[in-house]
């Protein structure tokens, strides 16, 4: 994907998250966190400093708007760090394949596994940090499941709708 288009997409998703998706409050408290698609849109690179730095600041930006301290930065960075590991596990890709890697060339099953794993890791950390105590594990798991499902539905619908315009 072209850098300008990528940047526009990331800004759009950011604003969508901050002004619309943070106010969904499904069942009174469940919100989708679609900004995690940052991890799937950002191009793969051998040098990981830019990606990790961007993860941190993208998450921190969300934190500024939702007054959550640093929980989005923490969880997005965490999921971002383990992105390459899951890429190796699910797609068997090494550093040589990074440049030409694209979700559209892979089978949907593999992409699904990869996206679901990263989404739930991210959401679990995010919601645990938000609750800030481990007395109420049941509600953390339940909330992770609900908001994770919402995010995944939105992400897959979105990527299906825009799959011809963006190659990424």
């Amino acid at each position, binding site marked *: 994907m072209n850098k300008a288009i990528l940047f526009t997409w990331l800004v759009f998703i950011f604003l969508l998250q901050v002004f619309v998706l943070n106010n969904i409050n499904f069942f009174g*408290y469940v919100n989708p966190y679609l900004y995690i698609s940052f991890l799937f849109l950002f191009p793969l690179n051998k040098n990981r400093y830019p990606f990790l730095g961007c993860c941190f600041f993208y998450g921190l930006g969300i934190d500024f*708007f939702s007054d*959550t301290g640093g929980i989005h*930065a923490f969880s997005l960075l965490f999921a971002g760090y383990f992105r390459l590991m899951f890429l190796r596990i699910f797609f068997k890709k090494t550093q040589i394949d990074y440049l030409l890697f694209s979700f559209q060339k892979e089978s949907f099953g593999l992409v699904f596994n990869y996206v679901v794993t990263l989404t739930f890791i991210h959401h679990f950390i995010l919601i645990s940090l*938000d609750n800030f105590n481990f007395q109420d594990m049941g509600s953390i798991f339940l909330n992770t499941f609900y908001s994770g499902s919402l995010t995944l539905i939105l992400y897959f619908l979105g990527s299906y709708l825009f799959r011809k315009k963006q190659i990424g």
Partner: protein
Amino acid sequence: MQQLVYFLRKYRFFLFFLCLETIAMGLIINNHSFHRSKFVSSANSIVGGFYHNSSAISDYFQLAEENKRLVAENNELINRNEQLLKIIDSSKTFLSKDTLKYHQQYKYISGKIQKNQYSSINNFLNINLGKSDHISKEMAVINSKGIIGITEHVSNHYTRVQSILNQNSSISAKLKNNSNHMGNLKWDGKDYNIVQLEGLPRQAKVEKGDTIITSGNSAIFPEGILIGTAINVIGTQTSVNKVVNIQLFNDMSDLKNIYVITNFDKIEIRNIELNADE
């Protein structure tokens, strides 16, 4: 030395990752303490400006409802004023023209909520008042129906408010009936229209439907600001840990116009409390 360089080279991404995670963790812990100044807060000029513009758009959709609410409030205030004028018989009342003797303790500043939050565990609001409107830390935020929160982080034009729907929030409250038993108002993080009153002494009698108001015990809230009605008491009437569930008068998901209360005597009250400690 070479080993060290090799180690750093091998784990350079991991170390960078750890470094950023530590910063994030520091910011999270900082966000949980009321008295530290915040770096990550929606009260800064950029984020506040964004919310200012977005609320300017969304305000239009609530104008009719909000107008109705303000007219109702006006109506109540006019009626109360009439009652007071009846009580004050001007022929018998001594009118003081000496402004030095005149003393006003509270001042109300009106403002608007730009960002409302109620679904999280620790909720914060953002209002369109700041240092330029003489807002400072630890001021009461209310509306016509009852309490909303306490100002926490103030920038030039915007302020972050710690909502009563926040696990760190603790406000002194009491029953409106004749007894002066006081307790702490807390929130358990479950239902955003129900808060809890804790630490009531066991001899305090609470019935379903009792009105709960602020106690005026702290220098932040004046006495008698409405909070809500008691819906049930957890634990028996005589147990030590009596917790009262309170249905708020405010619908916390639907707030717009607010007042921030300045207490002119705050510093004086604080000084007396400090001197008493010594």
